[in-house]
């Protein structure tokens, strides 16, 4: 029978006990720093306002399936909200910049080891980082090309359908939008799951597994709505949408007769 198996060690252990800096991972810095607040803020901003805006954006875009006039009416409605430019910065751009910036910082500091430990949770962890990166790259070009360059949509809501249509008619752009839609919906759905796990809402193993399915189905649904709206812009039904609609045409909305130049198949 084996008795003792410890082997003598020639080098002395590194001096943790003598108060010198310990090599390797440092112990907890109790009571120091602000990372708790920053990290929780990152978690919260992902749900509100960013997640809430994502749902609003995808649901709003669904109006595109009803045609250019209905889509324009939706754009006009959103841009007519009181303090809309303040709302836009306070509830969309600033939280997004913070969430993206701190998110990249989190990504850079994690050391993914999914090659050694190819377990489900570990894959989800890694995918959360990659989909966040994809979403960020996409959002930068999307906001630049659709919001801050070309026709200014807040002033010309009637041009919205045409502007998006011109973009999505490029097969490359369509693919980029589709990939980004999937990545963003994944990032959001898994983000909601993570939020509930980390804030102690779903603390039980079973609750977490069950809620995982709920988030999965909800994310899939959101993604389907998003992809369907994308389809509206390239489908034969609304090909060659007019470059702009008059306010009267927008007001008439779905009841409007087909604007000139629109190949209407109804």
């Amino acid at each position: 029978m084996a008795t003792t198996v410890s082997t003598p060690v020639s080098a002395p252990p590194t001096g943790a006990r003598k108060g010198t800096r310990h090599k390797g991972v440092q112990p907890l810095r109790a009571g120091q720093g602000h990372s708790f607040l920053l990290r929780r803020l990152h978690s919260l901003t992902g749900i509100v306002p960013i997640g809430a805006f994502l749902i609003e954006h995808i649901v709003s875009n669904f109006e595109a399936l009803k045609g250019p006039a209905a889509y324009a009416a939706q754009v006009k409605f959103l841009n007519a909200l009181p303090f809309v430019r303040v709302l836009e910065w306070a509830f969309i751009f600033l939280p997004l910049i913070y969430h993206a910036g701190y998110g990249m910082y989190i990504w850079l500091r994690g050391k993914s080891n999914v090659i050694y430990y190819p377990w489900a949770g570990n894959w989800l962890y890694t995918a959360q980082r990659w989909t966040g990166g994809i979403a960020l790259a996409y959002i930068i070009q999307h906001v630049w090309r659709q919001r801050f360059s070309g026709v200014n949509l807040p002033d010309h809501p009637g041009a919205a359908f045409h502007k998006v249509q011109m973009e999505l008619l490029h097969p490359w752009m369509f693919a980029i939008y589709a990939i980004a839609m999937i990545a963003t919906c994944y990032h959001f759905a898994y983000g909601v799951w993570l939020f509930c796990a980390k804030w102690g809402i779903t603390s039980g193993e079973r609750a977490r597994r069950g809620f995982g399915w709920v988030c999965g189905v909800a994310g899939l649904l959101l993604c389907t709505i998003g992809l369907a709206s994308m389809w509206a812009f390239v489908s034969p039904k609304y090909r060659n949408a007019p470059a702009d609609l008059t306010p009267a045409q927008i007001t008439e909305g779905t009841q409007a007769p087909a604007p000139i130049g629109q190949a209407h198949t109804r």
Partner: protein
Amino acid sequence: MQAAETLTGAAIPLSKPTGKTYRIEIKRQASPDAEPHWDKFDLPQRTGMNVISAMMEIAGNPVTTDGRATTPIAYDANCLEEVCGSCAMRINGKARMACSALIDKVQENGVVRVEPLSKMPVIRDLSVDRSVLFENLKRVQAWVPLDGSYDLGSGPRITPQQQEEAYPLSRCISCTICMEVCPQFNEETNFVGAATIAQAKLFNEHPTGKVLKTERLHALMGDGGIHECGFSGNCVTACPKMLPLTRAISEVSRDVMIQAAKDIFTR
């Protein structure tokens, strides 16, 4: 001799040679700052061997595959029954307890690759300095404060329900595997790791230990605290003692949030 007997007369099978050999490859370094290198050994395979018994066999005849005499392997181990927590190492790339890693089970095409834990400073060969866990346990005061100069009388009653909650958390053997496999436990985040959070939970729930609950929660709000968890769930999958680690992290996280909210209004 084929088998020994227990007191009741039941037969205990003894390790028998199988006639086969296997190769064990070990990542070694002579001192904390030395460059690591690999030594290979061919050993006769016996039934029921584990990675620690392989080390013992090497110590008996420390000669590598290419016939070079070397020193015995330095490693930590003690109980040989997965309760002391000292023998954690990476075996074929995965962190696990060496004493419960049976050669028959872990070998891949007759080869077993053994490396020290990657996130703890190496002292020599497979022996690593895991004092960061001890430091972390001290910082969250993972104990029941009882010291005093007079008789405190009997402690508060612990219900069977409380025991049911506490027992799984008390099984921790401080092996640091949950920290090794965690993508967030590294020198960038200096995350505290699952084991310490589970122990904070254990003592927060204890009727006497809970007097330090607020202090523990405050400690876990510091840099490297509970918020660095990314919920990959590797800890709970890898833990050899099957602690409910993700549950503990989620619940302590909630307590920390509630404490932080309270602090805003009462501090």
